[in-house]
């Protein structure tokens, strides 16, 4: 079994493709650096991510794939799923080897896997648009903590910038420990070493809340309760469309 070790970046995968063609050996497994090697390992190669090599592979892909297929590749990678590595690698390899694009051949397992992963990531981005909840702080900033399944904050943030152009906000990914701050002009990627309590709980302390913030939360919870038709209670559908893992930070689901 041939194992390639790489740094778990998208450029890293592209570099791995480049290396494979120049070494003429193709990996059976891709692993992140420091991960447990399989038992029977004939050969390992450590990929040193190299922007120039990555760019050359990308250029080759651009000649064959449509813009939609290209973004399908990069966006699927935001899933951070290790099981995507090999299908993605093989998809790229088949594209390089094939005279025409294979992007619409969904009978190919690798194409289907990458496409389905892309769909899942886009769905998670959509959930960010749905379930982010802001709380207004005394300084006028709207704060939201979010914990998406995949790494989608960067993908969804422009939606918030367009929609809330006239209000400063901060959306922070708790699990991946970074976020974006918007000051009514520019978006800045931020990461805080020291964390105030609301970066852990998602809830602003009352002394940090803007005037009326508490009332509006209360109003929203009142609305949420009143809109339900008791004769139609259906908690199963509710959980299917709004999985419980998001409830932690939903204003309407707080006490």
């Amino acid at each position, binding site marked *: 079994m041939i194992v390639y070790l790489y740094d778990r970046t998208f450029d890293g995968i592209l570099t791995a493709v480049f290396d494979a063609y120049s070494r003429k050996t193709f990996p059976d497994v891709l692993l992140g650096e420091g991960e447990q090697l399989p038992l029977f390992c004939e050969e390992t190669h450590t990929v040193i991510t190299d922007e120039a090599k990555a760019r050359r592979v990308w250029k080759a892909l651009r000649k064959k794939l449509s813009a939609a297929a290209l973004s399908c590749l990069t966006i699927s990678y935001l899933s951070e799923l290790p099981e995507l590595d090999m299908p993605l690698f093989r998809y790229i390899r088949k594209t390089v080897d094939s005279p025409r694009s294979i992007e619409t051949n969904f009978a190919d397992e690798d194409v289907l896997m990458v496409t389905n992963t892309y769909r899942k990531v886009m769905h998670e981005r959509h959930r960010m648009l749905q379930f982010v909840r802001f709380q207004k702080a005394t300084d006028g900033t709207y704060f939201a903590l979010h914990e998406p399944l995949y790494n989608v904050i960067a993908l969804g943030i422009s939606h918030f910038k367009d929609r809330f152009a006239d209000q400063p906000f901060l959306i922070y990914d708790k699990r991946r420990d970074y976020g974006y701050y918007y000051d009514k002009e520019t978006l800045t990627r931020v990461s805080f070493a020291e964390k105030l309590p609301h970066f852990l709980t998602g809830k602003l302390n009352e002394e940090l809340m803007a005037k009326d913030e508490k009332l509006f939360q209360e109003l929203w919870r009142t609305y949420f309760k009143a*809109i339900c038709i008791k004769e139609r*209670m259906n908690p199963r559908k509710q959980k299917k*469309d709004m999985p419980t893992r998001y409830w932690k930070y939903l204003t309407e689901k707080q006490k």
Partner: protein
Amino acid sequence: MTEQTLEKLRILTESAKYDVSCSSSGTVRSNKQGGVGNTLGGIGICHSFSDDGRCISLLKIMLTNYCIYDCAYCINRRSNDIPRATLSVTELVELTMEFYRRNYIEGLFLSSGVVRNPDYTMERLVRIVKDLRTIHRFNGYIHLKSIPGASRELINEAGRYADRMSVNIEIPNEDSLKRLAPEKDFQSVFQPMKFIQQGVLESSEERKKFRYAPRFVPAGQSTQMIVGATADSDKDILHLSSTLYARPTMRRVYYSGYIAVNTYDKRLPVLKQPPLVRENRLYQADWLLRFYQFKVDEIVNDAHPDLDLEIDPKLSWALRHPECFPVDINKADYEMILRIPGVGVKSARLIVSSRRFGRLTSYHLKKMGVVMKKAKYFITCGELEARGVNELRPERVRELLLPAPKKKTDDRQLSFQFPDEP
């Protein structure tokens, strides 16, 4: 904004919640300099799901639940003794803006009971949407329910600010409507629908000439029918829907299983539970009309005036037409692939685009998300196949596909979702 607003919000939400439409689909509008909000088009965003599993996309609320009319099926009818309230324009505008800024909602769905007369009420509604758009520069979604009997002038003004307008038919048959809602008739419903349609058509003519001419309800109109409050069949309901969809601006017909809110009224049936399975089947049939290229007569007709409650309408059609099967996955037209039970729009597209690369087998179909449990009786893909609908006969296939009887079936647990335009 005070604690009292809480109570008013509660009352007016309780009064508005029986209108099932909630979608925020259909308009693309980016934010403008100095404004707040945008709309995305496509399917719209559901921000939450209430305990009844329904999507919460818009702040669905009434301006007031006082009403001079006495519609039998409505919780707000004047003869009901319920708590009544009225929100001020400022309160309503502030609620909308503050909810929106916290990403609770996509916008506002505003309706109202009729106070004094239709135009007086409509004027108040117009005032709110106008304030939101012009003073508060709100670019989010606005759905305005038109007041039956409102004048053309007011509807024309409202249409300049609203994304979508709706006039609910409620009862699919004019005689029943008059019996249950003495102040209404088809004229009071179809007239405003026509005004909205004319407004849209005129404005799109204008916009051909002047690019910046104002848009008029860019997301078109919708309506709702109550299911199960009268004896009307699914055929009556779906024929009306299909007539409405043939009109240029009608985007959605909603079906609302009748909830017995006024049990004392002898003109209405006594239902222990709202007919949710039937409602679900109607949505599936509606779906077939809009996205699967079915004609209404194929779904319901004189021989089959009502939808089969046990199986979905597409399967039901297939079982009535075994002569159309089996369908060859590798050769048949897209339209025919779509008609295979167990194949959805997404998998039909995957099939058609992939088979150019090579033969598809049942293995591929499964991977593409086809429900083989159903589809296997209706397809061929050049393999050794299981016995299909013609060998087994439709009755037998129906039996095989019926859900296994559970000990306690709760028909409220159906999870069919009806997202908007795909």
